[in-house]
């Protein structure tokens, strides 16, 4: 049995760069490459794709990514674990098998992990007395949105991934597993750990480390407050982990790559998208980030010790996506002098246009770009005559037709607007798939694994 497992992070989101992943597989001597593609927003987009075309809904980047990575990974003995199946893991896994065949990599074993899709089981769950209460808003009336539901995915634990690795998969294609399960699964598999009390702290250590690296360059200088100090971010190195059987780990990146790994970049990611840091609730365990220690042990090397936590929670998080009307959005821009006054006049004109058009909207929001668009009420008043100001308006409506009125009202500003009014490219009206987060007991979730051989 290994004493150290080497795992690289090959993707932090759908749209991430491929070259740092290629470098990691070429030079990282990795046992595993974990690739995270999914976010709540991403799942909604993929669900819409699957609605239009039933054989889509996986991450389209799987094709170029696996085309580049599979030959290298097979050659290096690195196994790839990804959630690129998105809203359609079966179609994604089939597509990866075809990539392997086209590359002449016969015998490549692609594991399909399913079981996160709860869409066809919602009525069964409610009939069993599971309330599906909205955990963000406290709303209890799931029935009010039931007929508008387009997707429901549970964040699953790593048991499917472990089963896939036990079945000698070279590539694992999963759907909505928890992001860090992409790392927890391989670690538990290599060390033979089970979801039992004696392994809890070490599994929580794997969750913690998975959390640190799952957004790839976000732990190596990306998204940093110390952006000015981060060298060559355009050729940033993605992180890799040396995870030890004792539940400690070193996070590092390859020599010669851009970015940085130090105590600060690790701290920055430890606090990313976390609520109570002593209760980081994941399907494989509840990690406690408040007792670990960070030590810099060399250039771009940080050791993490003292990690731990509690056993897995009884309830698992489900995100239900439902159709919730339309958003119409528009922008116009105004020059110095008196740029803000021009934008304010344009806002007044837009409101008059909305009135004349009889706009029916349940929410209308105006922002002044350059003044308060990003920070809203927390932004102070502008203290000088700004060089330029933009006006942004966004509305939420029941129908597409109502949302389209925003674009029309904005284009009316071409001549009704103040002198100097200018425009960018119009923004498309878009349908909303809103999220209804909820919980289900873990015993209702069943994962299945199937090996597709190229």
């Amino acid at each position, binding site marked *: 049995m290994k004493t150290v497992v080497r795992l690289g992070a090959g993707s932090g989101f759908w749209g991430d760069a491929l070259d740092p992943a290629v470098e990691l597989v070429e030079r990282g001597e990795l046992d595993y490459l974990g690739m995270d593609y999914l976010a709540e927003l991403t799942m909604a987009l993929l669900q819409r794709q699957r609605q239009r075309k039933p054989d889509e809904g996986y991450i389209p980047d799987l094709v170029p990514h696996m085309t580049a990575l599979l030959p290298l990974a097979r050659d290096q003995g690195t196994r790839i674990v990804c959630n690129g199946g998105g809203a359609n893991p079966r179609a994604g896994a089939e597509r990866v098998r075809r990539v392997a065949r086209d590359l002449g990599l016969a015998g490549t074993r692609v594991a399909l992990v399913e079981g996160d899709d709860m869409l066809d089981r919602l009525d069964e769950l409610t009939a069993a007395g599971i309330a599906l209460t909205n955990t963000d808003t406290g709303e209890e009336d799931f029935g009010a949105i039931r007929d508008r539901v387009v997707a429901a995915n549970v964040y699953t634990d790593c048991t499917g991934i472990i089963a896939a690795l036990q079945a000698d998969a070279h590539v694992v294609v999963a759907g909505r597993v928890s992001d860090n399960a992409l790392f927890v699964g391989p670690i538990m598999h290599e060390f033979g750990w089970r979801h039992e009390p004696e392994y809890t702290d070490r599994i929580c250590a794997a969750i913690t480390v998975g959390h640190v690296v799952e957004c790839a360059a976000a732990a190596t200088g990306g998204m940093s407050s110390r952006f000015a100090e981060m060298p060559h971010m355009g050729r940033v190195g993605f992180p890799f982990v040396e995870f030890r059987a004792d539940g400690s780990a070193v996070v590092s990146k390859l020599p010669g790559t851009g970015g940085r790994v130090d105590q600060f970049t690790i701290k920055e990611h430890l606090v990313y998208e976390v609520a109570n840091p002593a209760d980081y609730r994941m399907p494989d365990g509840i990690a406690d980030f408040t007792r670990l220690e*960070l030590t810099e042990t060399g250039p771009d090397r940080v050791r993490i010790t003292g990690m731990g936590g509690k056993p897995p929670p009884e309830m698992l998080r489900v995100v239900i996506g439902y159709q919730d009307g339309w958003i119409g959005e528009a922008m116009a821009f105004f020059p110095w002098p008196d740029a803000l006054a021009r934008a304010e006049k344009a806002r007044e004109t837009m409101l008059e246009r909305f009135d004349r058009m009889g706009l029916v909207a349940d929410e209308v929001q105006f922002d002044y770009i350059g003044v308060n668009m990003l920070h809203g009420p927390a932004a*102070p008043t502008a203290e000088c005559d700004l060089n330029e100001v933009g006006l942004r308006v966004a509305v939420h409506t029941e129908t597409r037709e109502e949302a389209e009125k925003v674009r029309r009202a904005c284009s009316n500003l071409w001549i009704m607007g103040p002198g100097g009014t200018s425009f960018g490219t119009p923004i498309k009206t878009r349908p909303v798939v809103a999220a209804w987060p909820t919980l289900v007991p873990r015993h209702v979730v069943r994962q299945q694994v199937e090996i597709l051989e190229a």
Partner: protein
Amino acid sequence: MRLLRDIAYVRSGDKGDTASFGIIAKEPAHYPEIVRNVTPQRVQALYADWSKGPVEVYRMDNIEAVMVVMRRGLGGGATRTLRLDQTGKSLGHALLRLRLDEP
């Protein structure tokens, strides 16, 4: 007048309709001042009606950081919000405007 930006960095993100901001001390010595100043009441006052609340603050003594969690703080969550900053990546930076109490 000193601001939180003088002693802290921020990493900002989302989870559903919850905005979460990690506030990290620039130097360990600054940590107690961060804990003293970053309170739910002051965060709520700063973000006004963009934070429907409640606001929670958690300490991380081991890495000299605090987590600020703003429930119902993203205008309905990434896909539903009318804000341009759909995932709250920018939102937490406003917290650096917080005025520090005079020691």
